[in-house]
Protein backbone atom coordinates (compact mmCIF):
# COMPACT_ATOMS: atom_id res chain seq x y z
CA UNK A 1 0.00 0.00 0.00
CA UNK A 2 1.33 3.43 -0.96
CA UNK A 3 2.23 6.00 1.74
CA UNK A 4 -0.75 8.11 2.86
CA UNK A 5 -1.54 11.23 0.87
CA UNK A 6 -2.02 14.71 2.28
CA UNK A 7 -5.22 16.60 1.48
CA UNK A 8 -3.22 18.94 -0.77
CA UNK A 9 -1.75 16.03 -2.72
CA UNK A 10 -5.01 14.08 -2.98
CA UNK A 11 -7.05 17.07 -4.12
CA UNK A 12 -4.52 17.88 -6.86
CA UNK A 13 -4.64 14.28 -8.08
CA UNK A 14 -8.44 14.24 -7.99
CA UNK A 15 -8.62 17.53 -9.90
CA UNK A 16 -6.25 16.12 -12.51
CA UNK A 17 -8.37 12.99 -12.89
CA UNK A 18 -5.51 10.81 -11.59
CA UNK A 19 -7.18 9.71 -8.36
CA UNK A 20 -10.68 8.46 -7.75
CA UNK A 21 -12.44 9.51 -4.50
CA UNK A 22 -13.87 5.98 -4.41
CA UNK A 23 -10.41 4.38 -4.51
CA UNK A 24 -9.09 6.87 -1.98
CA UNK A 25 -11.97 6.08 0.37
CA UNK A 26 -11.49 2.34 -0.07
CA UNK A 27 -7.81 2.82 0.78
CA UNK A 28 -8.74 4.61 4.03
CA UNK A 29 -11.30 1.92 4.92
CA UNK A 30 -8.65 -0.78 4.41
CA UNK A 31 -6.26 1.08 6.70
CA UNK A 32 -9.02 1.45 9.28
CA UNK A 33 -9.80 -2.26 9.13
CA UNK A 34 -6.16 -3.18 9.57
CA UNK A 35 -5.02 -0.60 12.11
CA UNK A 36 -8.01 0.48 14.16
CA UNK A 37 -7.95 -2.69 16.30
CA UNK A 38 -4.58 -1.45 17.55
CA UNK A 39 -5.17 2.32 17.53
CA UNK A 40 -8.81 2.48 18.71
CA UNK A 41 -9.02 5.80 16.89
CA UNK A 42 -12.53 5.18 15.53
CA UNK A 43 -15.44 4.33 17.77
CA UNK A 44 -17.80 4.13 14.80
CA UNK A 45 -16.90 3.48 11.15
CA UNK A 46 -19.60 4.60 8.69
CA UNK A 47 -18.35 2.62 5.70
CA UNK A 48 -21.65 2.65 3.77
CA UNK A 49 -22.03 6.39 4.22
CA UNK A 50 -18.39 6.91 3.20
CA UNK A 51 -18.77 4.90 0.01
CA UNK A 52 -22.00 6.73 -0.86
CA UNK A 53 -20.27 10.09 -0.27
CA UNK A 54 -17.30 8.98 -2.39
CA UNK A 55 -19.46 7.78 -5.28
CA UNK A 56 -21.44 11.00 -5.21
CA UNK A 57 -18.20 13.01 -5.23
CA UNK A 58 -16.84 10.97 -8.12
CA UNK A 59 -20.00 11.46 -10.18
CA UNK A 60 -20.05 15.19 -9.40
CA UNK A 61 -16.38 15.68 -10.22
CA UNK A 62 -16.57 13.73 -13.48
CA UNK A 63 -19.40 16.01 -14.59
CA UNK A 64 -18.39 19.44 -13.29
CA UNK A 65 -14.90 19.11 -11.81
CA UNK A 66 -14.27 19.40 -8.05
CA UNK A 67 -16.15 22.12 -6.21
CA UNK A 68 -13.06 22.78 -4.09
CA UNK A 69 -10.00 21.15 -2.53
CA UNK A 70 -12.08 19.03 -0.14
CA UNK A 71 -14.28 17.42 -2.78
CA UNK A 72 -13.90 13.66 -2.41
CA UNK A 73 -11.52 13.89 0.59
CA UNK A 74 -12.10 11.32 3.39
CA UNK A 75 -12.26 12.76 6.89
CA UNK A 76 -13.88 11.90 10.23
CA UNK A 77 -15.29 13.76 13.20
CA UNK A 78 -14.45 13.77 16.87
CA UNK A 79 -17.39 12.10 18.56
CA UNK A 80 -18.60 15.26 20.24
CA UNK A 81 -19.66 16.69 16.86
CA UNK A 82 -23.34 15.94 16.20
CA UNK A 83 -23.98 13.95 13.04
CA UNK A 84 -27.57 13.64 11.83
CA UNK A 85 -28.79 10.05 12.08
CA UNK A 86 -25.37 8.83 13.19
CA UNK A 87 -24.56 8.00 16.81
CA UNK A 88 -22.76 10.78 18.73
CA UNK A 89 -21.64 9.65 22.16
CA UNK A 90 -19.03 12.00 23.58
CA UNK A 91 -17.24 8.67 24.19
CA UNK A 92 -19.53 8.28 27.20
CA UNK A 93 -21.89 5.63 28.48
CA UNK A 94 -24.39 8.43 29.11
CA UNK A 95 -24.87 9.02 25.38
CA UNK A 96 -24.21 5.49 24.20
CA UNK A 97 -27.43 5.44 22.14
CA UNK A 98 -27.68 9.14 21.28
CA UNK A 99 -28.57 9.80 17.65
CA UNK A 100 -28.77 13.51 16.81
CA UNK A 101 -31.32 14.81 14.33
CA UNK A 102 -29.10 17.55 12.97
CA UNK A 103 -25.46 17.93 11.96
CA UNK A 104 -23.23 20.33 13.86
CA UNK A 105 -22.76 23.47 11.78
CA UNK A 106 -19.12 22.60 11.03
CA UNK A 107 -20.04 19.02 10.07
CA UNK A 108 -22.62 20.38 7.62
CA UNK A 109 -20.10 22.86 6.20
CA UNK A 110 -17.48 20.15 5.67
CA UNK A 111 -20.08 17.91 4.00
CA UNK A 112 -21.11 20.80 1.75
CA UNK A 113 -17.45 21.17 0.75
CA UNK A 114 -17.60 17.62 -0.60
CA UNK A 115 -15.83 15.65 2.13
CA UNK A 116 -16.38 11.93 2.57
CA UNK A 117 -17.33 11.00 6.13
CA UNK A 118 -15.59 7.86 7.36
CA UNK A 119 -17.03 7.84 10.88
CA UNK A 120 -16.70 9.08 14.44
CA UNK A 121 -13.44 9.37 16.31
CA UNK A 122 -12.46 8.59 19.88
CA UNK A 123 -12.23 11.42 22.38
CA UNK A 124 -11.67 11.72 26.06
CA UNK A 125 -15.08 11.38 27.72
CA UNK A 126 -16.97 14.61 26.96
CA UNK A 127 -13.61 16.07 25.88
CA UNK A 128 -12.21 16.04 29.41
CA UNK A 129 -11.88 12.61 31.01
CA UNK A 130 -9.07 10.47 29.69
CA UNK A 131 -7.32 8.29 28.95
CA UNK A 132 -10.00 6.11 30.54
CA UNK A 133 -10.22 2.33 30.56
CA UNK A 134 -13.69 2.05 32.13
CA UNK A 135 -15.78 3.41 29.23
CA UNK A 136 -17.71 1.46 26.56
CA UNK A 137 -14.84 2.06 24.10
CA UNK A 138 -11.09 1.89 24.79
CA UNK A 139 -8.88 4.99 24.55
CA UNK A 140 -7.05 5.76 21.30
CA UNK A 141 -3.38 4.83 21.16
CA UNK A 142 -0.38 6.60 19.71
CA UNK A 143 0.46 5.42 16.16
CA UNK A 144 4.18 5.99 16.76
CA UNK A 145 4.07 3.52 19.65
CA UNK A 146 0.69 2.09 20.74
CA UNK A 147 1.90 1.66 24.32
CA UNK A 148 1.94 5.44 24.54
CA UNK A 149 -0.64 8.17 25.03
CA UNK A 150 -2.08 10.21 22.17
CA UNK A 151 -2.75 13.28 24.25
CA UNK A 152 -6.30 14.47 24.46
CA UNK A 153 -9.00 15.10 24.20
CA UNK A 154 -9.03 14.91 20.36
CA UNK A 155 -7.24 11.60 20.72
CA UNK A 156 -8.85 9.67 17.86
CA UNK A 157 -8.13 12.42 15.34
CA UNK A 158 -4.52 12.58 16.51
CA UNK A 159 -4.11 8.81 16.17
CA UNK A 160 -5.89 8.43 12.82
CA UNK A 161 -4.03 11.01 10.72
CA UNK A 162 -0.38 9.82 10.80
CA UNK A 163 -0.97 6.31 9.37
CA UNK A 164 -3.53 7.64 6.88
CA UNK A 165 -6.79 6.28 8.27
CA UNK A 166 -8.12 9.74 7.54
CA UNK A 167 -6.62 12.66 5.64
CA UNK A 168 -7.83 15.11 8.26
CA UNK A 169 -10.48 15.51 10.89
CA UNK A 170 -12.14 17.68 13.44
CA UNK A 171 -11.03 18.38 16.98
CA UNK A 172 -11.99 20.69 19.78
CA UNK A 173 -9.75 22.66 22.11
CA UNK A 174 -10.84 23.92 25.52
CA UNK A 175 -7.47 23.76 27.26
CA UNK A 176 -5.25 22.29 24.55
CA UNK A 177 -7.30 19.38 23.18
CA UNK A 178 -6.32 20.01 19.54
CA UNK A 179 -2.72 21.13 20.04
CA UNK A 180 -1.86 18.50 22.66
CA UNK A 181 -2.71 15.38 20.66
CA UNK A 182 -1.49 17.01 17.45
CA UNK A 183 1.92 17.39 19.09
CA UNK A 184 2.10 13.95 20.71
CA UNK A 185 0.96 12.31 17.45
CA UNK A 186 3.26 14.42 15.24
CA UNK A 187 0.67 16.26 13.13
CA UNK A 188 -0.56 19.84 12.72
CA UNK A 189 -3.57 21.18 14.57
CA UNK A 190 -5.00 24.66 14.89
CA UNK A 191 -7.12 26.16 17.61
CA UNK A 192 -8.57 29.10 15.67
CA UNK A 193 -9.49 32.46 17.15
CA UNK A 194 -12.43 32.20 19.58
CA UNK A 195 -15.53 32.86 17.50
CA UNK A 196 -14.08 31.98 14.09
CA UNK A 197 -15.53 28.45 13.97
CA UNK A 198 -19.02 27.60 15.14
CA UNK A 199 -19.50 25.35 18.17
CA UNK A 200 -23.22 24.87 17.45
CA UNK A 201 -24.06 21.17 17.57
CA UNK A 202 -20.83 20.25 19.33
CA UNK A 203 -21.20 18.86 22.86
CA UNK A 204 -20.07 21.71 25.12
CA UNK A 205 -17.47 21.48 27.85
CA UNK A 206 -16.77 25.10 28.77
CA UNK A 207 -18.72 27.78 26.90
CA UNK A 208 -16.13 30.55 27.07
CA UNK A 209 -13.10 28.35 26.39
CA UNK A 210 -14.39 25.85 23.80
CA UNK A 211 -13.01 26.12 20.27
CA UNK A 212 -13.56 23.87 17.28
CA UNK A 213 -10.88 23.36 14.65
CA UNK A 214 -9.13 20.98 12.26
CA UNK A 215 -6.22 18.56 12.57
CA UNK A 216 -4.24 17.14 9.63
CA UNK A 217 -0.80 16.01 8.52
CA UNK A 218 0.30 19.46 7.33
CA UNK A 219 -0.29 23.11 8.07
CA UNK A 220 -1.66 23.67 4.57
CA UNK A 221 -4.16 20.83 5.03
CA UNK A 222 -5.36 22.51 8.23
CA UNK A 223 -5.82 25.75 6.28
CA UNK A 224 -7.92 23.92 3.68
CA UNK A 225 -10.13 22.33 6.34
CA UNK A 226 -10.49 25.56 8.30
CA UNK A 227 -11.58 27.36 5.13
CA UNK A 228 -14.64 25.12 5.04
CA UNK A 229 -15.30 25.19 8.79
CA UNK A 230 -14.99 28.91 9.52
CA UNK A 231 -17.69 31.54 9.31
CA UNK A 232 -20.45 33.30 11.18
CA UNK A 233 -23.16 31.12 12.68
CA UNK A 234 -26.14 32.72 14.40
CA UNK A 235 -26.65 29.45 16.28
CA UNK A 236 -23.41 30.03 18.23
CA UNK A 237 -23.64 33.10 20.51
CA UNK A 238 -19.84 33.47 20.44
CA UNK A 239 -19.61 33.38 16.65
CA UNK A 240 -17.82 36.35 15.10
CA UNK A 241 -19.82 38.13 12.39
CA UNK A 242 -16.98 39.03 10.04
CA UNK A 243 -15.75 37.95 6.61
CA UNK A 244 -13.63 34.80 6.38
CA UNK A 245 -10.30 35.50 4.69
CA UNK A 246 -8.54 33.14 2.29
CA UNK A 247 -6.33 31.17 4.66
CA UNK A 248 -3.94 30.08 1.92
CA UNK A 249 -3.64 33.45 0.19
CA UNK A 250 -0.29 34.24 1.80
CA UNK A 251 0.77 30.77 2.90
CA UNK A 252 3.92 30.83 0.75
CA UNK A 253 4.91 34.31 1.91
CA UNK A 254 7.67 33.12 4.23
CA UNK A 255 8.72 34.65 7.54
CA UNK A 256 11.22 37.23 6.35
CA UNK A 257 10.77 40.32 8.47
CA UNK A 258 8.19 38.76 10.79
CA UNK A 259 8.68 39.65 14.45
CA UNK A 260 8.54 36.51 16.55
CA UNK A 261 8.41 36.66 20.35
CA UNK A 262 9.58 33.64 22.34
CA UNK A 263 7.88 33.17 25.70
CA UNK A 264 10.99 31.46 26.98
CA UNK A 265 10.06 31.61 30.67
CA UNK A 266 6.99 29.48 29.93
CA UNK A 267 8.94 26.45 28.73
CA UNK A 268 12.24 27.01 30.53
CA UNK A 269 11.05 28.11 33.99
CA UNK A 270 7.29 28.09 34.60
CA UNK A 271 6.86 24.60 33.14
CA UNK A 272 10.37 23.50 32.29
CA UNK A 273 10.23 21.08 29.39
CA UNK A 274 12.51 18.10 28.84
CA UNK A 275 15.79 18.47 27.01
CA UNK A 276 14.67 16.89 23.69
CA UNK A 277 11.65 19.22 23.51
CA UNK A 278 13.74 22.25 24.41
CA UNK A 279 16.51 21.41 21.96
CA UNK A 280 13.98 20.84 19.17
CA UNK A 281 12.34 24.17 19.97
CA UNK A 282 15.68 25.99 19.95
CA UNK A 283 16.50 24.36 16.61
CA UNK A 284 13.10 25.45 15.27
CA UNK A 285 13.78 29.04 16.33
CA UNK A 286 17.13 28.89 14.51
CA UNK A 287 15.31 27.72 11.38
CA UNK A 288 12.86 30.60 11.61
CA UNK A 289 15.74 33.04 12.16
CA UNK A 290 17.63 31.62 9.17
CA UNK A 291 14.48 32.11 7.11
CA UNK A 292 14.57 35.81 7.98
CA UNK A 293 12.38 36.19 11.07
CA UNK A 294 13.40 38.55 13.86
CA UNK A 295 13.44 36.55 17.08
CA UNK A 296 13.31 38.06 20.56
CA UNK A 297 12.35 36.90 24.04
CA UNK A 298 9.21 38.30 25.64
CA UNK A 299 7.74 38.10 29.12
CA UNK A 300 4.19 37.63 30.34
CA UNK A 301 2.63 36.99 33.73
CA UNK A 302 3.55 33.59 35.14
CA UNK A 303 2.09 30.67 33.23
CA UNK A 304 0.43 29.53 36.46
CA UNK A 305 -1.73 32.68 36.42
CA UNK A 306 -3.14 31.82 33.00
CA UNK A 307 -3.52 28.14 33.90
CA UNK A 308 -5.31 28.92 37.18
CA UNK A 309 -7.69 31.23 35.37
CA UNK A 310 -8.35 28.55 32.74
CA UNK A 311 -8.90 25.77 35.27
CA UNK A 312 -11.36 27.76 37.37
CA UNK A 313 -13.42 28.81 34.34
CA UNK A 314 -13.29 25.42 32.63
CA UNK A 315 -14.18 23.33 35.64
CA UNK A 316 -16.97 25.59 36.84
CA UNK A 317 -18.55 25.87 33.39
CA UNK A 318 -18.17 22.11 32.80
CA UNK A 319 -19.87 21.42 36.12
CA UNK A 320 -22.73 23.68 35.09
CA UNK A 321 -23.10 21.67 31.86
CA UNK A 322 -23.01 18.29 33.61
CA UNK A 323 -24.63 18.94 37.00
CA UNK A 324 -28.02 17.35 36.20
CA UNK A 325 -26.40 14.12 34.99
CA UNK A 326 -23.87 14.12 37.80
CA UNK A 327 -26.68 14.19 40.31
CA UNK A 328 -28.74 11.47 38.64
CA UNK A 329 -26.13 9.23 36.98
CA UNK A 330 -22.86 9.93 38.77
CA UNK A 331 -21.49 6.43 38.38
CA UNK A 332 -22.34 6.23 34.69
CA UNK A 333 -19.37 8.54 34.05
CA UNK A 334 -15.88 7.12 33.89
CA UNK A 335 -13.89 7.58 37.07
CA UNK A 336 -11.51 10.17 35.65
CA UNK A 337 -14.18 12.52 34.38
CA UNK A 338 -16.55 12.23 37.31
CA UNK A 339 -13.78 13.05 39.77
CA UNK A 340 -12.48 15.94 37.67
CA UNK A 341 -15.99 17.31 37.17
CA UNK A 342 -16.99 16.91 40.81
CA UNK A 343 -14.26 19.35 41.84
CA UNK A 344 -16.11 21.96 39.78
CA UNK A 345 -19.06 21.61 42.14
CA UNK A 346 -16.82 22.76 44.98
CA UNK A 347 -15.82 26.11 43.50
CA UNK A 348 -17.61 29.24 44.68
CA UNK A 349 -19.46 31.71 42.49
CA UNK A 350 -17.08 34.43 43.54
CA UNK A 351 -14.09 32.34 42.41
CA UNK A 352 -15.58 32.09 38.93
CA UNK A 353 -16.14 35.86 38.79
CA UNK A 354 -12.61 36.53 40.03
CA UNK A 355 -11.29 34.21 37.31
CA UNK A 356 -13.24 36.17 34.70
CA UNK A 357 -11.88 39.45 36.06
CA UNK A 358 -8.35 38.03 35.93
CA UNK A 359 -9.09 36.86 32.41
CA UNK A 360 -9.75 40.42 31.27
CA UNK A 361 -6.45 41.56 32.81
CA UNK A 362 -4.56 38.74 31.08
CA UNK A 363 -6.23 39.53 27.73
CA UNK A 364 -5.10 43.14 28.06
CA UNK A 365 -1.57 42.01 28.91
CA UNK A 366 -1.45 39.67 25.91
CA UNK A 367 -2.76 42.33 23.53
CA UNK A 368 -0.28 44.87 24.80
CA UNK A 369 2.63 42.48 24.39
CA UNK A 370 1.50 41.38 20.92
CA UNK A 371 1.27 44.97 19.70
CA UNK A 372 4.90 44.91 18.60
CA UNK A 373 4.96 41.33 17.40
CA UNK A 374 3.50 39.14 14.65
CA UNK A 375 3.87 35.69 16.17
CA UNK A 376 4.56 34.10 19.55
CA UNK A 377 6.31 30.78 20.05
CA UNK A 378 6.50 28.39 22.98
CA UNK A 379 6.31 24.67 23.68
CA UNK A 380 3.07 22.66 23.64
CA UNK A 381 3.86 19.59 25.71
CA UNK A 382 6.72 19.23 28.19
CA UNK A 383 7.91 15.95 26.71
CA UNK A 384 7.04 13.34 24.12
CA UNK A 385 4.10 11.04 24.80
CA UNK A 386 4.14 9.19 28.13
CA UNK A 387 2.99 5.61 28.40
CA UNK A 388 -0.80 5.47 28.23
CA UNK A 389 -1.02 3.83 31.66
CA UNK A 390 1.11 6.51 33.32
CA UNK A 391 -1.11 9.59 32.97
CA UNK A 392 -2.07 10.89 36.45
CA UNK A 393 -5.66 11.81 37.29
CA UNK A 394 -4.63 15.25 38.51
CA UNK A 395 -1.91 15.92 35.91
CA UNK A 396 -3.45 19.31 35.13
CA UNK A 397 -2.64 20.50 38.65
CA UNK A 398 0.92 19.29 38.87
CA UNK A 399 2.33 21.71 36.27
CA UNK A 400 0.58 24.64 34.54
CA UNK A 401 -0.61 23.94 30.99
CA UNK A 402 1.49 25.55 28.24
CA UNK A 403 -1.60 25.70 26.02
CA UNK A 404 -4.19 27.25 28.35
CA UNK A 405 -3.08 30.91 27.88
CA UNK A 406 -4.45 30.91 24.35
CA UNK A 407 -7.81 29.48 25.40
CA UNK A 408 -8.05 32.14 28.10
CA UNK A 409 -7.27 34.92 25.61
CA UNK A 410 -8.89 33.31 22.55
CA UNK A 411 -5.77 33.85 20.39
CA UNK A 412 -5.25 31.47 17.45
CA UNK A 413 -2.54 28.87 18.05
CA UNK A 414 -1.19 26.13 15.81
CA UNK A 415 1.04 23.23 16.77
CA UNK A 416 3.58 21.76 14.38
CA UNK A 417 6.03 18.87 14.57
CA UNK A 418 9.61 19.84 15.48
CA UNK A 419 11.18 16.40 15.20
CA UNK A 420 11.37 13.22 17.22
CA UNK A 421 12.69 12.29 20.65
CA UNK A 422 15.19 9.53 21.40
CA UNK A 423 12.40 6.93 21.47
CA UNK A 424 11.06 7.97 18.07
CA UNK A 425 8.03 9.82 19.43
CA UNK A 426 7.13 13.24 17.99
CA UNK A 427 7.89 16.64 19.53
CA UNK A 428 6.27 19.96 18.77
CA UNK A 429 5.91 23.69 19.27
CA UNK A 430 3.04 26.13 19.03
CA UNK A 431 2.89 29.38 17.11
CA UNK A 432 0.37 32.03 18.13
CA UNK A 433 -0.92 35.10 16.28
CA UNK A 434 -3.23 38.01 16.98
CA UNK A 435 -6.99 37.36 16.88
CA UNK A 436 -8.23 36.60 13.35
CA UNK A 437 -4.67 36.66 11.97
CA UNK A 438 -4.89 33.00 10.89
CA UNK A 439 -3.51 33.73 7.38
CA UNK A 440 -0.29 35.03 8.92
CA UNK A 441 -0.20 32.15 11.41
CA UNK A 442 -0.50 29.60 8.59
CA UNK A 443 2.21 31.46 6.68
CA UNK A 444 4.70 31.27 9.55
CA UNK A 445 3.92 27.65 10.43
CA UNK A 446 4.03 26.56 6.77
CA UNK A 447 7.40 28.29 6.29
CA UNK A 448 8.85 26.31 9.19
CA UNK A 449 7.22 23.05 8.17
CA UNK A 450 8.41 23.17 4.56
CA UNK A 451 11.95 24.11 5.61
CA UNK A 452 12.28 20.99 7.78
CA UNK A 453 12.16 17.26 6.96
CA UNK A 454 9.60 16.10 9.53
CA UNK A 455 6.67 15.68 7.08
CA UNK A 456 8.52 12.97 5.15
CA UNK A 457 8.33 10.53 8.07
CA UNK A 458 5.19 8.52 8.89
CA UNK A 459 4.79 5.90 11.63
CA UNK A 460 5.97 2.45 10.63
CA UNK A 461 2.64 0.65 10.88
CA UNK A 462 2.55 -1.58 7.85
CA UNK A 463 -0.84 -2.36 6.41
CA UNK A 464 -1.14 -5.94 5.22
CA UNK A 465 -4.20 -7.74 3.87
CA UNK A 466 -4.43 -9.75 7.09
CA UNK A 467 -3.90 -6.84 9.48
CA UNK A 468 -0.96 -5.05 11.08
CA UNK A 469 2.46 -6.40 10.18
Amino acid at each position, binding site marked *: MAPPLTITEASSLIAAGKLSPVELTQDCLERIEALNPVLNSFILVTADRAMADARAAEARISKHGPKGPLDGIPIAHKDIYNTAGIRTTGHSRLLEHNIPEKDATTVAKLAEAGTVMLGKLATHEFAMGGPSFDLPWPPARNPWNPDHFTGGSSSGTGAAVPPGLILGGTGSDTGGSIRGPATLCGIAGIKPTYGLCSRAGVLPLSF*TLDHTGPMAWTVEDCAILLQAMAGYD*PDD*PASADRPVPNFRAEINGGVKGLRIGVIRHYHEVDHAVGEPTRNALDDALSVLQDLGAEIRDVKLSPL*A*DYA*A*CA*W*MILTTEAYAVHEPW*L*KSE*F*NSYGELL*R*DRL*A*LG*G*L*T*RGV*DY*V*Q*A*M*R*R*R*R*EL*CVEMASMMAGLDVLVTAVQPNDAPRIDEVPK*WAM*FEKPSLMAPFNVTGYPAISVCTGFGPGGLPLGMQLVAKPFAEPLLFRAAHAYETATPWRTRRPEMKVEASGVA
Partner: protein
Amino acid sequence: MKPMISEDAFAVLLAQTGLPLSTEQKKTLHGAYGYVEQIAARISGPRPREVEPAMIFRAGAK
Protein backbone atom coordinates in the same frame (compact mmCIF):
# COMPACT_ATOMS: atom_id res chain seq x y z
CA MET B 1 -1.57 18.55 48.02
CA LYS B 2 -2.96 18.67 51.54
CA PRO B 3 -5.98 21.00 51.74
CA MET B 4 -6.32 23.71 54.38
CA ILE B 5 -10.04 23.11 54.81
CA SER B 6 -11.02 20.91 57.76
CA GLU B 7 -12.66 17.57 57.06
CA ASP B 8 -15.88 18.78 58.72
CA ALA B 9 -16.04 21.91 56.61
CA PHE B 10 -15.24 19.89 53.49
CA ALA B 11 -18.09 17.51 54.30
CA VAL B 12 -20.48 20.48 54.39
CA LEU B 13 -19.15 21.72 51.05
CA LEU B 14 -19.65 18.29 49.49
CA ALA B 15 -23.14 17.94 50.92
CA GLN B 16 -24.12 21.23 49.26
CA THR B 17 -23.43 19.74 45.84
CA GLY B 18 -26.02 17.02 46.32
CA LEU B 19 -23.79 14.52 44.53
CA PRO B 20 -24.22 10.85 45.48
CA LEU B 21 -20.62 10.25 46.56
CA SER B 22 -19.19 7.15 48.19
CA THR B 23 -16.76 7.44 51.11
CA GLU B 24 -13.90 6.57 48.77
CA GLN B 25 -14.96 9.24 46.27
CA LYS B 26 -15.20 11.84 49.04
CA LYS B 27 -11.69 10.95 50.14
CA THR B 28 -10.38 11.30 46.57
CA LEU B 29 -11.92 14.76 46.20
CA HIS B 30 -10.64 15.86 49.59
CA GLY B 31 -7.14 14.85 48.50
CA ALA B 32 -7.36 17.10 45.43
CA TYR B 33 -9.12 20.06 47.05
CA GLY B 34 -5.82 21.64 48.08
CA TYR B 35 -5.24 22.39 44.40
CA VAL B 36 -8.58 24.18 44.20
CA GLU B 37 -7.65 26.32 47.21
CA GLN B 38 -4.32 27.18 45.61
CA ILE B 39 -5.96 28.17 42.31
CA ALA B 40 -8.67 30.24 44.00
CA ALA B 41 -5.99 32.14 45.93
CA ARG B 42 -3.97 32.80 42.77
CA ILE B 43 -6.85 34.37 40.84
CA SER B 44 -8.15 36.44 43.75
CA GLY B 45 -5.23 38.84 44.03
CA PRO B 46 -5.93 42.49 44.93
CA ARG B 47 -7.36 44.58 42.11
CA PRO B 48 -9.35 47.81 41.86
CA ARG B 49 -13.00 47.25 42.71
CA GLU B 50 -14.15 48.61 39.33
CA VAL B 51 -12.38 45.89 37.32
CA GLU B 52 -15.08 44.07 35.38
CA PRO B 53 -15.20 40.44 34.28
CA ALA B 54 -14.27 39.45 30.73
CA MET B 55 -17.87 38.63 29.86
CA ILE B 56 -20.15 41.64 29.89
CA PHE B 57 -23.84 41.59 29.05
CA ARG B 58 -24.69 43.43 25.83
CA ALA B 59 -28.16 44.90 25.64
CA GLY B 60 -30.03 43.81 22.56
CA ALA B 61 -27.72 40.90 21.77
CA LYS B 62 -29.49 38.03 20.02
